[in-house]
């Protein structure tokens, strides 16, 4: 084999090895990026769902009010019972306070996550205030 042919083969081998290294790096980078995006998405959904506990417990449609003015940091039990009117779209979630379902759109998800927060629940008839568990499932 001539010296020139040998040099061409050497160059080809070097280019081949470098290409393989770059290809492996790209595959690793791609997988890492995809996993990272999935993690970020899951984290975003978690934050969004957990943040709902704060939003729900401050909704004027649920809070105790007198003559239309917010009166207490409590959820009105009667308002909670009639809340499920489809006005709000919280996505694929189930939201409930004790046994009262405020929103249900889980669509038979097999694996769900859950976050709960205590809230004050007022029975406007007896005016008794008790603690309740606001649960968000997603």
């Amino acid at each position, binding site marked *: 084999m001539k010296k020139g042919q040998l040099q061409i083969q050497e160059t080809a081998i*070097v280019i081949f090895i*470098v290409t393989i290294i770059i290809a492996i790096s790209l595959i690793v980078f791609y997988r890492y990026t995809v996993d990272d995006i999935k993690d970020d998405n899951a984290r975003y959904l978690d934050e969004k769902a957990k943040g709902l506990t*704060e939003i729900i417990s401050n909704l004027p449609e649920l809070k105790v009010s007198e003559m239309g003015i917010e009166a207490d940091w409590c959820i009105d039990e009667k308002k909670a019972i009639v809340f499920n009117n489809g006005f709000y779209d919280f996505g694929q979630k189930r939201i409930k306070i004790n046994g009262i379902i405020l929103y249900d759109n889980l669509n038979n998800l097999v694996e769900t996550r859950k976050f*709960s927060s205590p*809230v*004050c629940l007022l029975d406007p008839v007896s005016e008794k205030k*008790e603690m309740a568990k606001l649960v968000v499932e997603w």
Partner: protein
Amino acid sequence: MVKRGQIEAIGLVVIVVLLVLLGLFFLKYSGKGDVDEDRFLTIKANNFLNALRQVSIGGSSFEDLAIECCSGGSSCAQIESSMVANGATYLDEDFYFELKCVDESNSVVKSTNCSSTVASGHIVLISGDEMFVKLCRNF
């Protein structure tokens, strides 16, 4: 035969690739702490304290009983049992609770053994007494 220059070039490429991968792992694990979880635990702690303050216990609110307890009344045991029962039922985390009376005579404390906690805001009652909650971090 591979020349010495080519071997060095390949070595450099490998080093650069390794450095890039190290940089990516560093970026992945830096800056993503438990700050978000802390935020939600704080919300939970504040919600618990706000709800607890208003809960009715035998015709009076928890707040009224706390004020009575701090002024030397006999309601301290009642608010302690109510707080412990509500915490066990409505919180998923172990918690620390303190009712700090102005004159420091009749404070109610529910302690916890966890090393790392997230605190709620302090609620100052009309009488000047304070109460707050700390939730244990589960992570």
